[in-house]
């Protein structure tokens, strides 16, 4: 696939390398150090850094501002944008805001319902859904026009991504859904974090059967487990998460003080297994509030140093 934007992430994927991305959650305050400190921990070990957008509907420093900060630090941000909080005017406007700072990656999401967050009494917007946001970002880039039809001066050059969850219900539409996102214009996918590798491989197989792996870059999502308790919580309390009993058992059978190391080991093993899976073009390591472990994971998985581009 040829390159359409100045995005470093796109270039690495186009060159055929396995890409590595990670994510940072902005603070519940206005301290910029909270972002820069986390980002510095992973500089050099990842190709791009996602900034979440009021994740779980908890009000935080906005993704756009945090992405700008990363850009000013010389890092490559991925702007996560949910459709829950903004109408089409604001969405297009924020895309332009990001583009004005030469931010080249966007991940289009619907967003968790506001009931989960700190403002359960608020409205939700969903003027567009995630698929329509993908279409919008592509339209702004490729046609150089606003949704309303007027031309955009200096159109955004966004590499457009979407999320995919091979483990959500119903399973039978998970691959049709991937196809739909590709049809809408998604160029890269970051999946929900994977613990059930068999199921993920099954999803990939169905995707490959339809040739989808050649139309979009799929990055496998991974989150290292910190404890058996975390494994159980994710298994039972997080919708759309599939944590096999064997994984919970492996964590639970480990002595408590060694559980974090075991979680990292599982993560590294998963990467090593998935590296060989056709259609997997990279990894999205989500180590929320555990960013300091990302370098170790990347190194042990044999993904360090990151490729340089000329």
């Amino acid at each position, binding site marked *: 696939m040829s390159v359409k934007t100045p995005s470093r992430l796109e270039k690495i994927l186009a060159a055929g390398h396995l890409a590595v991305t990670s994510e940072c959650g902005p603070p519940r305050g206005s301290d910029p150090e909270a972002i820069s400190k986390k980002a510095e921990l992973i500089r050099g070990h990842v190709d791009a850094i996602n900034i979440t957008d009021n994740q779980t509907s908890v009000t935080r420093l906005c993704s756009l501002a945090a992405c700008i900060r990363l850009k000013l630090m010389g890092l490559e941000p991925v702007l996560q944008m949910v459709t829950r909080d903004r109408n089409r005017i604001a969405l297009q406007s924020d895309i332009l805001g990001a583009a004005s700072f030469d931010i080249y990656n966007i991940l289009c999401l619907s967003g968790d*319902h506001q009931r989960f967050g700190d403002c359960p009494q608020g409205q939700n917007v969903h003027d567009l859904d995630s*698929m329509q946001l993908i279409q919008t970002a592509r339209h702004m880039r490729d046609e150089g026009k606003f949704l309303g039809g007027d031309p955009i001066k200096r159109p955004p050059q966004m590499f457009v991504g979407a999320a995919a969850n091979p483990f959500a*219900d119903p399973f039978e539409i998970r691959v049709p859904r991937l196809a739909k996102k590709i049809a809408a214009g998604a160029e890269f996918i970051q999946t929900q974090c994977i613990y059930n590798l068999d199921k993920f491989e099954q999803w990939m197989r169905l995707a490959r059967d339809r040739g989808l792996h050649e139309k979009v870059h799929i990055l496998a999502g991974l989150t290292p487990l910190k404890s058996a308790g975390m494994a159980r919580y994710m298994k039972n309390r997080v*919708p*759309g998460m599939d944590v096999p009993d064997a994984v919970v058992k492996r964590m639970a059978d480990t002595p408590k003080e060694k559980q974090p190391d075991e979680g990292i080991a599982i993560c590294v093993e998963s990467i090593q297994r998935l590296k060989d899976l056709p259609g997997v073009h990279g990894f999205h390591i989500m180590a929320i509030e555990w960013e300091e472990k990302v370098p170790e994971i990347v190194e042990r998985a044999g993904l360090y140093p990151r490729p340089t581009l000329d």
Partner: protein
Amino acid sequence: MIVADKKPIQEIIETIQNHTRILIMGCNECVTVCEAGGKKEVGILASALRMYFLNQNKDVSIDEITLERQCDHEYLEEIRDRVDQYDAIVSLACGVGVQFTAEKYHSIPVYPGVNTCFLGATEERGLWTERCQACGRCILAQTAGICPISRCAKRLLNGPCGGSSGGKCEIDKDIDCGWQLIIDRLKALGRMDAYEKLCPIKDWSTDRAGGPRKVTREDLKQ
């Protein structure tokens, strides 16, 4: 139909505290069907309020009436000759009826006695659920007869989201995932090919967002 739910008696008492000649006015249509504002509910509320004021040793008269509807001029006219006897009306009609009554009799305060909730259906007696958001441009033909705007908590037009779990919505395990219902129905109709068709960006100008709406039929006007 329009589904409403009774306001707590305490709230109604606070609203009418300073009035002494009150008419409780019910409606024979939707609020009767959802047992919130029909003749029976008017009787219950009126009796409760009378006892309350008697207990307070306040001389308050509470009358009762139930109209066929409160959203048509003809039916509201029926109280024209007695409305001066009262200093307040508590209307148990939906928000439409309360307002239409207030517009017609604008020198007497008209208070709501129910909370108007949504457009929905009677699943069984005692259970009413939402079905329609009155978006003004019905897409049910494209979604196998199930509306994603009213039955998806995020009104996704290309759903489901990643939070759909066991056919239930992420916000409440008692709420069906609207998109699961659509997919099940598409399967039953042999139309799963329709699932991958991208639903285009919606024109919300016929929805609430476009401002207060109206429907005009020139062929019906006199």
